[in-house]
């Protein structure tokens, strides 16, 4: 189903119309002068000025180039669009030895000679190809001069490195600005060279049509955790993966058309700047969940799912988008189109499918809305009540706030739980509490953890607990009350003694939440001293504090020796709610 869904996506978005070409971001062009005597290297990147929050970025044009072969370290020349060691026979970054580069150039020129033979003599195509052959036949100094000049003009090391490993398309100045590989005669030659001559005997797994099983599947770029040369989704690169004496990809016969369509669809989903082959740009369809996991999403039938990426980045904006109909299309909550989610990560040169889900867009929209509702929390620094972007939640569960320290697979598991409407994994509660004990209940991270804990309780099965966003005076769960009590005692200490180097909370949060029986009696005894001091300075405030503390203690018949994990979660929530309650302005009647 996964491959079929990807194939359908490629058809739907027009990525599979001309599989002999593929869109890539190409910045540099080698422009040949008349008769191939001279050439220059031109930079077609455009600088987009900074706009609001976005920094200024360099936009590289997306160009359709002849489909590349997916070479790794062997010598294999691409047709017309290639790197400097193949076109010029010289590698400026010195990674390829000079004689190897010359061998590569010979392979490149071979393909040009073949192409020239198929063109009508005197035609623009033939002239352009001849000029290219003449230029590349020149001496080393002459033919590498354009590249050396361009390298000298590079403003930074980063640009220089980019230029050294860039692909170049070739243009011939006298015939105009079209790159040579897009001229009609040359396109026809390229298509003809890609025709399959073997008999189609196997049945393709994806389309069901007779096909010649493809040998090697195109690599996917941008898979996190994978190699820089790419990672295949379908590969059989070890004998243990073969069965029934079938060799390599005969284990799963897939035709070239299906294979390239699927690779186009996956590359489009993984790319940061996706574009159609003709250059029109497409919306981004992936969410980076962690350093080695990416979640791809797409929907059938051109339904509008741009809002989906927003829920991970900007939740406040999503609410209205979910409800409002957009220019004639159905609002997301009623859209019956299928919505696919695929979580991929890279390992050992392969892409691994971590999870796959397929539901209606309406169901997903409903699940997202429910999640945003449940995960709302009173945010510190006067941001009001709302949800954080998903990555803030994930970071709050990681040591030192670093994504790399997240327990593996937690990001993917949490993401799928959100989309499918299932309970959160228990690891969410455990990690949130562990981090709170280690880092203390302060700041945005703590608020984010409280949001996750609250959502965890709402979604747990079989007994979901509904807990409001702010203080619930009717909640009599022991964990919740103890959390409130700790917050009250801390406030009392603050009011009585002013600011201190080590507050009550700093010292006792961890032990109070895990072993209240050992800690609270001592804390309550000490609070009497604080009350005594406060009574002398601000008697009214002291009375208030005393009332609140007595009120809460009234519900607790004893301080249990330990608190189980669920109650510790409620402890964190009680603490957070009570703390936030101190900051909200109330009317004159004090609520107990």
């Amino acid at each position, binding site marked *: 189903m996964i*491959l079929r869904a990807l194939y359908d996506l490629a058809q739907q978005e027009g990525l599979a119309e001309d599989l002999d070409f593929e869109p890539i971001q190409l910045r540099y062009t080698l422009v040949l002068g008349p008769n191939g005597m001279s050439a220059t290297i031109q930079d077609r990147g455009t600088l987009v000025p900074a706009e609001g929050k976005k920094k200024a970025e360099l936009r590289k044009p997306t160009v359709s180039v002849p489909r590349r072969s997916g070479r790794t370290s062997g010598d294999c020349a691409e047709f017309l669009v290639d790197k400097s060691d193949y076109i010029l026979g010289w590698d400026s970054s010195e990674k390829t030895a000079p004689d190897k580069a010359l061998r590569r150039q010979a392979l490149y020129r071979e393909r040009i000679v073949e192409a020239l033979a198929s063109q009508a003599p005197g035609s623009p195509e033939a002239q352009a190809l001849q000029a290219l052959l003449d230029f590349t036949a020149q001496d080393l100094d002459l033919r590498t001069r354009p590249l050396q000049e361009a390298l000298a003009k590079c403003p930074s090391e980063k640009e220089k490195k980019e230029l050294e490993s860039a692909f170049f398309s070739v243009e011939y100045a006298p015939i105009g600005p079209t790159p040579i590989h897009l001229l009609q005669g040359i396109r026809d030659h390229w298509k003809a060279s890609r025709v399959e001559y073997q008999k189609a005997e196997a049945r393709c797994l994806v389309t069901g049509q007779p096909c010649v099983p493809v040998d090697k599947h195109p690599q996917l770029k941008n898979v996190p955790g994978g190699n820089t040369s790419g990672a295949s989704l379908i590969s059989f690169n070890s*004998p243990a993966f073969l069965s*029934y004496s079938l060799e390599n990809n005969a284990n*799963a016969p897939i035709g070239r058309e299906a294979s390239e369509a699927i690779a186009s669809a996956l590359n489009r989903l993984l790319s940061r700047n996706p574009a159609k082959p003709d250059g029109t740009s497409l919306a981004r369809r992936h969410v980076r969940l962690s350093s080695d996991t990416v979640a791809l999403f797409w929907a059938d039938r051109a339904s509008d799912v741009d809002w989906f990426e927003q829920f991970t980045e900007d939740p406040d904006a999503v609410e209205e988008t979910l409800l409002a109909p957009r220019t004639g299309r159905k609002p997301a909550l009623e859209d019956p189109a299928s919505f696919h989610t695929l979580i991929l990560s890279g*390992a050992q040169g*392969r892409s691994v499918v971590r*999870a796959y889900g397929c539901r209606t867009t309406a169901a997903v929209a409903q699940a997202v809305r429910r999640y945003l509702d449940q995960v709302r929390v009173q945010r510190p620094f006067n941001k009001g009540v709302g949800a954080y972007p998903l990555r803030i939640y994930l970071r709050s569960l990681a040591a030192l706030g670093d994504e790399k320290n997240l327990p593996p697979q937690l990001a993917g598991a949490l993401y799928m739980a959100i989309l499918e409407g299932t309970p959160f994994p228990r690891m969410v509660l455990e990690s949130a509490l562990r981090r709170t004990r280690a880092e203390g209940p302060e700041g945005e991270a703590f608020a984010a953890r409280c949001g996750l804990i609250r959502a965890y309780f709402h979604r747990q099965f079989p007994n979901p607990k509904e807990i409001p966003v702010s203080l619930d005076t009717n909640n009599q769960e022991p964990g919740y009350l103890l959390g409130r009590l700790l917050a009250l005692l801390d406030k009392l200490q603050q009011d009585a003694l002013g600011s201190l180097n080590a507050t009550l909370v700093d010292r006792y949060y961890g032990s109070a939440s895990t072993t209240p029986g050992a800690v609270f009696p001592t804390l309550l005894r000490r609070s009497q001293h604080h009350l005594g001091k406060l009574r002398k300075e601000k008697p009214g405030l002291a009375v208030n504090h005393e009332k609140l503390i007595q009120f809460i203690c009234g519900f607790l018949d004893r301080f249990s020796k330990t608190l189980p994990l669920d109650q510790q979660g409620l402890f964190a929530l009680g603490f957070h709610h009570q703390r936030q309650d101190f900051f909200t302005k109330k009317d004159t009647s004090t609520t107990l």
Partner: protein
Amino acid sequence: MDPGPPLHRVRIHGNAACFTRPELKTERVSYEVITPSAARGVLEAILWKPAIRWKIHRIHVLAPIRFGQIKRNEVGSKLSERGNHGAYFADEDRVQRNTLFLRDVDYLVEARFEMTDQAGPGDTPAKFAEMFERRLAKGQHFHQPYLGCREFPATVEPAPPRWSTPPELAGIKPLGLVLWDMAHNPKSTRLVDGQRIHVCDGCKPLFFEARLQDGILEVPLEVSS
């Protein structure tokens, strides 16, 4: 007149199952539903004789489709069939492979067996039908029935009198091309100890366009290659 083999109904369920997709064999991803080939495997574990061949007619999915994921350390090579292997150290050949499996599966399989050309004069359909129902009721099997991979054992029982598919599977759910079974090449044999045995060389997998209708998968009886 012999009415022919009857339709048998069997309930197969287990904690975990992995009906591996051929195209995603390396990092295993399961099909959403039991393949006819795997269902046949379960029935053959209960009863199989050279005289009969099982044909799966219909599969009812009784539990919602849920995936789980595990990572396992496996090895990257196969032992050769010939003897004289020498030393093989698995810890020098480790490969970590991910598996996306199905959780808490529950199926009701409707199947019928047909007689093959190896059936003798005394082999009637009724004989095997009764043998199968007896073994099913007693829980007898030749080897542990499993759900796709050997590490996922299956519990096989006679079908309950009533069953229902979960509401979330209502409607039509297309599953794409699903493995129907292997078409073994009858000419591919090898002489071993004076006996001709079949070796898989040129045996092709066959696929069919599968669709779940209200949780029921209709399986074609023949698939052309």
